[in-house]
């Protein structure tokens, strides 16, 4: 900075003071620039992120463990046919993927609603299975793994087995975790046999939340 730059009216400043004042003014301008620019970028970013986060769609929340099945909901197969009480052989340990019947017929084809029906002997079950929620050796559990929400579609001997990360659930003991990473048992569905004794139906909702995201 040379003396040429000093405006004519700046008589009260000597050279050094002027330099300091210019430097200070520049620094103030820089700081204000950084603050202003940062605030602008920050404000846009925050609005951007929160806007996107708020715009997240809520899917499947209208289906909860309490309303997927209610008392009297028929169990149907994937084609929508009601499941009869002699569908699986007693004591066989066989499984069938079933779904709740929609109002007006047909299967409610939602992943959250997939249910595993297993049939053993009537006296094979132990606590913590809700014994009065079984019927003629049938027991029903949610099919959605409580680990990462794969479908528990496999078997490992008698146990129900999730092929994704290898969790085993014991169907005779309330679908408790007997191996693998899942943190909790599959929720049980109370089932019974219709008055005519031919068809399987739910006698109430699932015992607890489905899958891993316990909303």
């Amino acid at each position, binding site marked *: 900075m040379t003396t040429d730059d000093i405006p004519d009216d700046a008589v009260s400043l000597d050279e050094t003071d002027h330099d300091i004042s210019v430097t200070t003014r520049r620094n103030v301008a820089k700081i204000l620039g950084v603050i202003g620019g940062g605030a602008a970028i920050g404000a846009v970013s925050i609005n951007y992120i929160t806007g996107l986060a708020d715009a*997240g769609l809520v899917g499947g929340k209208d289906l909860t463990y309490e309303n997927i099945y209610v008392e009297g909901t028929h169990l149907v197969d994937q084609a929508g046919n009601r499941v009869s009480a002699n569908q699986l052989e007693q004591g066989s340990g066989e499984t069938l993927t079933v779904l709740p019947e929609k109002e007006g017929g047909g299967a409610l084809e939602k992943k959250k609603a997939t249910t595993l029906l297993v049939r053993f002997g009537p006296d094979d079950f132990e606590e913590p299975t809700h014994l009065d929620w079984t019927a003629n050796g049938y027991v029903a559990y949610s099919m959605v793994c409580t680990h990462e929400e794969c479908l528990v579609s496999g078997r490992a001997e008698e146990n129900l087995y999730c092929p994704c990360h290898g969790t085993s659930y014991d169907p005779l003991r309330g679908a408790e975790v007997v191996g693998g990473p899942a943190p909790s048992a599959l929720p049980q569905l109370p089932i019974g046999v219709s008055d005519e004794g031919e068809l399987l139906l739910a006698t109430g909702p699932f015992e607890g939340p489905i899958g891993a995201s316990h909303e």
Partner: protein
Amino acid sequence: MSEDTTTEDVASTGANTDTRTDGGVERYEHSRLYRWLDARLDLDDDSFGKAFPDDRYGSFLLGEVALFSFVILAATGTFLGLMYTPVTSEVVYQGQVAKYAGQSVPGAFASVLRISYDVRFGMFVRMAHHWAAYLFLAAIGLHMFRVFFTGAYRNPREPNWLIGSGLLLLALGEGYFGYALPYDDFSQTATTIGFQMTSSIPVVGTMLKNLIFGGDFPANATYILPRFFFYHVFLLPVLIMGLIGLHMFFLLRQKHTENPESSRDSSPIGPDPDDDSVVLGVPMWPNQVAMSVIVFCFTAAIVAFLAALFPVQRVAIIGPASPLTQPSGVRPDWFFMWVFGALKMTPNVFFGYGRFIGGVLFPGIVIGVMALWVFIDRHDEPVHFTANPLDRPMPTAVGVAAISMIIVLSIAGMDTFVAETLGTSADAIFPYMLGMTLLVPPAEGAIVYYALKRRLARRGEVA
């Protein structure tokens, strides 16, 4: 202005004629095209003579393999992107595959069936795309191991290690989003697992889930699949291209590390190894370009060979995404197998946080340590020569342990296949798998570390 340029050109050409003995670029002086381009682009410029390192093992070419894989991905992806439709709603498939003819399948699945079986050349291009993706990630991984073990990431090349780490993450993201697009039963399961992993993050999980997926999967798949398509064909490729450009710029600016054995020690009259102003190697034009053309042809040939003979993600066999079924043997692509294994190996002893710890925290720490390694193994002085891995016990031991960990976790991820092969159950071999996962990597790292330490000590005594 044009007059000035001409004068300069004449001057520089004159100067070059005096010094150049090999003929060089002057042989093109009779070409009007060359002169036209030279007048505008100054083709005699020094930057076209950038020295590439002399490397008898070809390990310095791995980055080029990755680059060319990306070129093939862009070329094949363009073909596929013009015919793919990111639609989850059911359409009636009218093509040649008898198994699905006349059936209602998700629109995305139908379009992939159409590309694969009804479009000329379609199956080959789809397989080439998948194999080029495998090769892209494999080449990035091997390139990073080369840089890691030879210490080429050290001062002043830390920024390029960080950029490279970013490229690896983006490539993995491309793999994840791309796997989802055919909307077959495997991809739906894999996407569900990724969604659940994101949701499992404490505090910010819900926000991240909304930012990345924009909704719940699979309930909002109708909206999520088009978003994945956008990520896969636009957002991530643009970021990858930008970072590749930056990676190249840093490389040209900083120059390669040199291999001291092949470039200097062997030459008794070579320049002083401590003279930073001298760079040895072959020039970019024409030597390295010729080499690169060969590398590109090899890369394309290998991709074509694998694509023609080894089909992957066979959607017609797997079947369309369905909320009610899940095929057995579900598994991710190989580059995610270690995370898959980590999820399997995390026992249920963390009060419900196991899936976060195994699936997000642990891989996050691994990737974080990898990306920030340049600040862990810090060097205050610039280094311009590659190191012998045997001379660096700690970094080499860490690298060996990391490779070992990826391998054992991948084996753990495939535990059902291991169990099948051994004729037993996955539950039965779990303790051995867990033991292997926890013990083998540290053991291998320790063996390497102490062996190299002893080697150094012995050498010190000799010298």
